[in-house]
């Protein structure tokens, strides 16, 4: 056991001296890792908040179904049956043509507005169940008998959903590209360290060091770069995010931001794990060549 500790101390010392020998390059690597993980962290927080807000939006989902003017009593009855039996509908309200006109009058403020022939159709206001598949529901409702059109609000929610999907794809692509870049930069830094220490490595091989013994200091160096980069990114995120939350709350109180500790702790673990992964993978890439 003490041998292990002693050997580990030797490796850590070697790794630190490798770090010092190429300080500027190592600091550059560190900043790249930190920036990558900062962007990844921001993206994860953004997605988390978007999902949270969307959930709220979904719970308030409402849809208006406009009926054809030519609808007859039998069709109307079968439509009501359809609405009542649909699992996506929580409640519904029938709006007559007169009621529709009245609400337009109130909305426009023209209380004495008279129309000879009311152009407004009859409609149903539907309150939808939380978590219902919105797109599928819209498709289904469009095919009900006697339905002429659906309220335009549906298009906006759909657009928002599409935007969120786009943001997710762009974010993932960004993280992928930046992650690959950091991986390459870490690999390159380690490769240069390996090159700078080639005499030491050749002597180590000569006196009978195993390959893993030779590799360990470089793995530790990569691990330290990844971990330190993640720590820097975390400090920036965890100190910047609460400021953003309070600012945004005063500007746009309707936007709900996640601020419970659990979410941020989860994020911390994710970033640290990414840092470790980047560091270890990066150094392993450049260590393949060290062999007997």
């Amino acid at each position: 056991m003490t041998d292990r500790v002693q050997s580990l101390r030797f490796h850590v010392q070697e790794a630190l001296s490798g770090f010092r020998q190429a300080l500027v390059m190592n600091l550059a690597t560190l900043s790249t890792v930190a920036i990558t993980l900062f962007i990844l962290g921001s993206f994860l927080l953004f997605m988390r908040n978007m999902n949270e807000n969307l959930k709220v939006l979904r719970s308030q989902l409402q849809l208006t179904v406009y009926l054809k003017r030519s609808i007859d009593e039998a069709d109307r009855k079968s439509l009501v049956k359809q609405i009542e039996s649909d699992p996506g509908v929580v409640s519904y309200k029938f709006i007559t043509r007169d009621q529709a006109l009245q609400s337009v009058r109130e909305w426009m403020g023209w209380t004495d507005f008279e129309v000879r022939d009311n152009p407004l159709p009859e409609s149903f206001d539907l309150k939808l169940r939380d978590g219902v598949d919105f797109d599928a529901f819209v498709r289904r409702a469009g095919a009900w008998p006697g339905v002429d059109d659906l309220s335009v609000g549906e298009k906006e929610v759909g657009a928002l959903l599409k935007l969120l999907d786009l943001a997710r794809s762009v974010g993932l692509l960004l993280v992928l590209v930046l992650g690959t870049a950091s991986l390459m930069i870490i690999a390159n830094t380690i490769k240069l360290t390996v090159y700078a220490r080639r005499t030491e490595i050749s002597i180590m091989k000569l006196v009978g060091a195993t390959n893993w013994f030779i590799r360990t200091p470089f793995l530790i160096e990569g691990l330290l770069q990844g971990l330190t980069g993640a720590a820097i990114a975390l400090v920036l995120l965890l100190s910047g995010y609460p400021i953003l939350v309070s600012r945004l709350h005063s500007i746009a109180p309707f936007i709900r931001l996640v601020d419970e500790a659990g979410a941020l702790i989860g994020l911390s673990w994710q970033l640290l794990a990414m840092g470790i992964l980047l560091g270890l993978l990066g150094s392993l890439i450049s260590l393949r060549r060290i062999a007997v």
Partner: protein
Amino acid sequence: MIQMYNVSKVFSNGVEALNNVNLHVGKGEFVFLIGPSGAGKTTLMRLIFREELPSSGHVIVDGRNIERLSACKVPYLRRSIGVVFQDFRLLDNRTVFENVAFALRVTNAPAADVEKRTRRVLDMLGLGHKKSFTPLQLSGGEKQRVCIARAVINNPSILLTDEPTGNLDPDMSLEIMDILAEINGKGTTLIVATHNSQLVNKMGKRVIGLVNGEVSSDRPKGVYSYS
């Protein structure tokens, strides 16, 4: 201890370094390896500690066939072989003590052991008072002694030295040779590749001549002559 059977070595660039070499070196022997530059002396030594593999033939070191040795066992073979070069190959950014202790540390030896054995080998080679110096502060002879210390600290059964006196003046060369003879006297098989005819003639040991990658002469108690 070392056996070579029909060993040839052709490098990937087409250079033929060794051609059908047959050789037996017994345990505890002292052997000089002589020959003109480019005769294959260094290649022959590199085969012994498996830095190179033979193109054909077999190299057996201490009962181990080096071409059948798996990569993970190579380090353990090397721990039983000490190697000393003409150009020293010391780490200039470490002290004499660290340069020597390095060879023990990589074998995961316990710290107390490293301390004790490094001190002992440095004292044996008359370097005890220079242990905190760096190689840059040492003379050529001292550097070569540090190399020898590093090569023997693992108590190798074989010591390979490639032109160990190549960079040294005659007095220092003699001193180094005395040290090597002393190590050999304790049972270590010793191979010395050299161009120093005076030393070879003075020591009166087995002399193997290599010319164009072939063994041209092999005489017990020989003199410096490879024709």
